[in-house]
């Protein structure tokens, strides 16, 4: 008892939560992000139906296209889970592959968003065209920004994976990016439901 040393750098013991600092930090960060997106979604809901001009959601939103896009993003969460499962088994090759797949699917999602945005823009919808355009682009735009940051994050983890820095014993980085990625996915599901399914 007197010279007991603590192995984890954070000195995990009975008066800590036994979760790595960085993992706890990521959860806490996501809690804050949840409030951020909730505020944006509430704003969207408050604003819906109040535009005095411009195209309505029913007129311009394309559920098929965005439905496919949603499927793409959900698939990327699946590949992310597979990536984590792979490294938990020590399979570095599959880790890298699934991470790449996740990033690619993320990029595909963003391309789909770009296509959707362009179509809407051609219909006269923009940030300044009217209230619907403003709240729609702000909400989906910030989500897209979060996806982009996620893809960059995956890139960092991939770089580390390629240099052998991610192992069966030490793969916290994959867990953390996974947490973030799943969060962003869940947010999208809510946005899709509120904006596309309920809102039209």
């Amino acid at each position, binding site marked *: *008892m*007197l*010279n*007991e*040393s*603590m*192995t*984890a*750098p*954070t*000195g*995990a*013991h*009975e*008066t*800590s*939560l036994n*979760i790595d*600092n960085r993992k*706890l*930090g990521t959860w*806490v*960060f996501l*809690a*804050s*992000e949840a*409030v*951020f997106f*909730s*505020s*944006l979604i509430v*704003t969207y809901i*408050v*604003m819906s139906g*109040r*535009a*005095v*001009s411009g195209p309505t959601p029913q007129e311009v939103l394309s559920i098929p296209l965005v439905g496919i896009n949603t499927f793409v993003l959900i698939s990327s969460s699946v590949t992310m889970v597979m990536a984590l499962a792979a490294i938990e088994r020590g399979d570095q090759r599959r880790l890298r592959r699934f991470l790449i797949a996740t990033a690619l699917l993320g990029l595909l999602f963003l391309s789909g968003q770009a296509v959707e945005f362009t179509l809407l823009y051609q219909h006269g919808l923009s*940030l*300044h065209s*009217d*209230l619907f*355009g*403003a*709240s729609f*682009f*702000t909400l989906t735009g*910030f989500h897209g920004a979060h996806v982009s940051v996620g893809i960059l994050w995956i890139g*960092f983890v991939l770089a580390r994976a390629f240099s052998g820095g991610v192992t069966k014993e030490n793969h916290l980085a994959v867990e953390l990016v996974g947490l973030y990625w799943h969060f962003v996915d869940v947010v999208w599901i809510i946005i899709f439901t509120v904006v596309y399914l309920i809102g039209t």
Partner: protein
Amino acid sequence: MQRNMLVDAQALPLQRYQTSVLRWLVTTNHKDIGLLYISASFLFFIVGGVEALVIRLQLAEPNSRVVSPEVYNQIFTMHGTTMIFLFAMPILVGFANYIVPLQLGARDMAFPRLNAMSFWLFLFGGLVLYSSFVLGGAPDAGWFAYAPLTGTDYSPTHGMDFWALGILMTGVGSTLGAINFVVTILNMRTRGMSMLKMPLFSWQILVTAILILFAMPALTVDAILLYFERAFRAPFFLAQQGGQPILWQHLFWFFGHPEVYILILPAFGIISEVVPVFSRRRIFGYAAIIYSGIAIGFLGFTVWAHHMFVVGLSPIADAIFSLDSMIIAVPTSIKIFNWVATMWGGRLNLKTPMLFAIGFISMFMIGGFSGITLATVPVDWQVTDTYYVVAHLHYVLFGGTVFAIFAGLYYWFPKMTGRFLSEKIGALQFWFMVLGFNLTFLPMHIQGLMGMPRRIYTYAANTSWGDLNFLETIGSFIIAIAVGIFLWNVAVSMRRGRPADGDPWHGHTLEWAVSSPPPGYNFAVAPIVHSRWPLLEENPDSVAEAHFATGVTDIPEETSVFPLVVAFGLGVAVYGLVYLYPVLILLGVAILFAGIVGLVYEPR
């Protein structure tokens, strides 16, 4: 004595502060960062105070023209913005930074480089905000920035862009800091320190950090909406396009009300440390103080629309928010009773920290009462938006938070510098401050009842508000003298103050178990605690039994320039966003990205 066992004086020489500028730019040590926060905030306090003096000079007499209304509106906007975002929040964070790891028996915060980044974001955010004065005009639509006055139609200068983006920048810093505190407090308490054995200051900081995490995003979204409206004409608050000015207020106050608890809970924490130590008793009702703090934190999210009783909400909504606002007064009063009860049977040591603590209790109580009258809807309908509210907010934020800050400064100055602040000068400052403060703000209750609205830059002679205004201006200068006395005290005491050892006040908590100032590594060995007040334990053998993972002598001096780089990059990007120069935005983002890459890849 067990205190000295925690500082292995033989292993390392006592650290002397290095004075190179570079050291301060790259430090990630929580004590350094705490000092940076406290110093920078205090500078902003003086600036905000000068702004207050300009306001008071302008209002001293009717039909005055000391400054034009255009300038006046910038001054009062920046006074509020500065005092809240650039002084009170950061200085409390500074105390927390310095003291919480020590109280927890930890070596540093959970994320030291993130900690540094939070500071630089705050500092640069504040500097960006102030640069607006010379870049076409500071923000001038109030610290609360109600739409649609803040849109480009009615506020055509870039002032409000600086406001929105400056708030966003400092807000990111606050949020990152909050994450750091939550993880540190939940995960890095020393052995034996269960949650219910944690010092009260650290407890209040935990609740504060959670409030920041959940409140700040609402303001972030609000500021984004405002910026988009101004930069891209997104009509969120433009009624003629279906926008809702009220949305601004709901989001703002959803943040704004927890914000005032963010400003007062750390103050409660400081008082909860000072009163027991200077009463030489344990605090009365430790658990009650914790649970009431949690209750206040939670309830603080349910009362926001009591700032909006006159905007035309339904009477039912008014009733609900009024009820919640009254309920929240209960846990608040409990704390006051607990502090007063702590003094019963104690042996009071009326040094300056205790003077300020007693002043705090008295002044905050007055502010609490005016708060209850404001929670009463019919009375609020008369006195909201008047000087009555100015009186209320200053009683709780100045008589409350600022008094507690001075209590903390006098209490922990010896810990941070190894010297006492002068008692004589401190007492002088205290009395000047009490006199000046009450002279300035007590009559404002009356003025509000007499019909004087807020945020007016002058008033007619026939209102008979002039006499009280004149008195208040005198009071404000007495406050200024008090602050000057404090600065004199610091100047005199830094070099020649009476030396203080590790535990000059006979404290109860772990920060007093190490030298003053503490060595860089805080504790040579990790303390084990068995009670809430480890330094009052009878058994000296019960501490100092565990080791940190790294031994005393191989503490890496973690420094990093990248937190500063990231904050700098964001600042550059903000300028780009204000003026909508894509090149500047990209440059800023590139610098920011480089900083992040640096953080990820630097050797640790």
